[in-house]
């Protein structure tokens, strides 16, 4: 089964944003870490714990079901494929996502995880990994 992005060791995160920069660079062609499908957040200042807002790779992805433009397609193993030029920017997926992991970029198009695993290659502490989803294990 194809693997999905998994937050494995959140407590090891150093907030280096390497994952965000990788996603922005490789998937969205942008220098800005705001244009990344994974978002590392503090829970209230840098002395607090960190959290990752990221697609959990749903089976029967509700975001895909909500997308009327045909831009989001369910992906085998979980999560979605994204056909960017079909995205109308309606924001239906943003509302539908069960973990609120989709945002719209400045052009009004979705920033959504496509389960490519690029971010995991740049994480120095294996916080993010690609794994088969628990349902398959």
């Amino acid at each position, binding site marked *: 089964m194809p693997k999905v992005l998994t937050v494995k060791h959140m407590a090891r995160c*150093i907030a*280096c944003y390497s994952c965000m920069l990788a996603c922005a*660079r490789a998937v969205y*062609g942008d*220098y*800005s*870490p*705001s244009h990344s499908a994974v978002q590392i957040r503090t829970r209230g200042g840098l002395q607090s714990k960190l959290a990752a807002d990221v697609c959990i790779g749903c089976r029967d992805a509700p975001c895909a079901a909500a997308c009327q433009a045909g831009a989001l397609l369910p992906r085998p193993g979980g999560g979605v494929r994204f056909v960017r030029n079909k995205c109308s920017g309606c924001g239906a997926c943003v509302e539908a996502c069960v973990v609120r992991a989709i945002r719209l970029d400045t052009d009004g198009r979705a920033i959504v995880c496509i389960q490519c695993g690029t971010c995991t290659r740049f994480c120095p502490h294996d916080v993010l990994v690609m794994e088969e989803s628990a349902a398959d294990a």
Partner: protein
Amino acid sequence: MLDANTVRVLYIDLGRREWRVDERPELARYLGGVGVAAKLFTEGLVPDAEASAPEQPVVLGIGPLTTVFPLATKTAAVFRSPLTGEWGESYAGMRLAMALRFAGYDAVYLTGRAQRPVYLVVDRDGVSFKDARGLWGLDCEETGRCLREWEQGRGFRSIVRIGPAGERGVAFAGVNVDTVRHFGRLGLGAVMGAKNLKAMVVHGEKSIPIPDRRAYRAVYEEIHARAVDTEVMEKYHGLGTAGNVLSLNAMGALPTRNLRENRFEGAERISGEAFAQKTLIRKLACPGCPVGCIHVGLYRRSFAEGHEYESITLAYDYELIYALGSFLGLSEPGDVYALIEAVEALGLDAISSGVVLGWATEALEKGLIHTADLGAELRFGDLDGYLAALHGLVEQPTPLYAVLARGLHRATAELGGRDFACLLGNNEMAGYHTGYAFILGQTVGARHSHLCNAGYALDQEPGLGEDPEGVVDRLIAEEEWRNVLNSLGVCLFARNIYDPPTVVRTLNALGVPAGAEDLAQLGAEIFDLKLAAKKRMGFDLSHVTVPRRYFETSTLQGTLREDVLGDLLSRYRARIAARA
């Protein structure tokens, strides 16, 4: 300067509450960072007015590599130093550089003085001036908490603020950046305080599309791999800079008890190893840095009988452990943390604070100053007096504290005792009593920092001691090259990754057409630019003196001789004179 052809400068006038953005294409040849900031600063510098005068500019600059290449995380600040009266330059990490990049500014030029305390919100739409009367008087921590809650942009913003030390004009007040990093040294905090500028929130999450993805990704991935996979960066993510405590102690180069000694019997207990084993709870990184050198430890203390504890987390580094540990004879991590906590909250520079207190301890012993004027008893190894004195430096309850708050250069001019003041180039010393190259380097470096030219590293190279011309050559070459790195926005910990060929490739991948020779030329030009500005501010290398203390306490190279250092200094001066 991601746009290779221009530099976008945000001009802010605090007195008039006005701002504008200017494109300065002619500055593109300075790349960014300290190059652009130095140039802008010299345009606005008023040599006849003191550092705290409203018209003096403060300039922040980021570089072409900022956030878009690994470890390009630093923002340069250039200002007139209230501590030395001349060249002020400082660097801070964490999110400021990223926030400026994606707000769309290469440099920020601040001038004027607000009528009442203000804080600024800077984003892609420009600047808002906001009332900071409610923040005035708050410490760095609480100021940060308020602004986190009041302002937007979580994750993509930076909160830059001063504490009470900056508000009250302590000449070595620092600036806190995102809780765990700082603009330290040379008193930028006091300059902000004099401008009635309590804080700045910079928020940037603008899209910047990558023009040539393929070329860019190839170079990015190679640098990232070198940063995480090789041993190049081991020193910084392992023990961090605190690993220096034991190595410098073993060399006989760890300044101890106001540099009366060069080894500390408590070194083991305040070593990087001890801090890590007993207190380290996590590491943090500046955005775009996979190394994560920021070591955060847990400081837990009992406040009452019966297992009543309070605890906070604090970032530690070698310089803090040296200045607030061995230099004051303190050998308990808890004591060092207590002073770090105070220095952080008050917004003081840790090195200058420790070195001032070390001097005061000895001055008290010698009868030069008196307990009554300090309201505290200062003794090496005794925390309580030092804690009280740190607050004294900021609150200035007695005239003596007001004098000490101006830094040791000015304080000893009034009180005497310069022989045992650990000053170099009128700045309190960094923690490396390694030998001639360190002393010469900090004395002659543009900002009188060990980081100008890394003399402490030369002292550790065998054989160089017999070659005075070689020492001078190397110091100048290093300072010139660091000017380039500091114009790119790169963290100096990554200097072994960013060698000249690599730098050229990163720039070319961004579409900046620079070759190795252009870079070398730029480094030299910035070097001269700073020298010229220093001269306008009254600095003259032939007037510098090196206190007696450096020749009394043995170093890694044994006991130093004044005539040998004098010879090095005159060779250095001759070399500088020949450049003009």
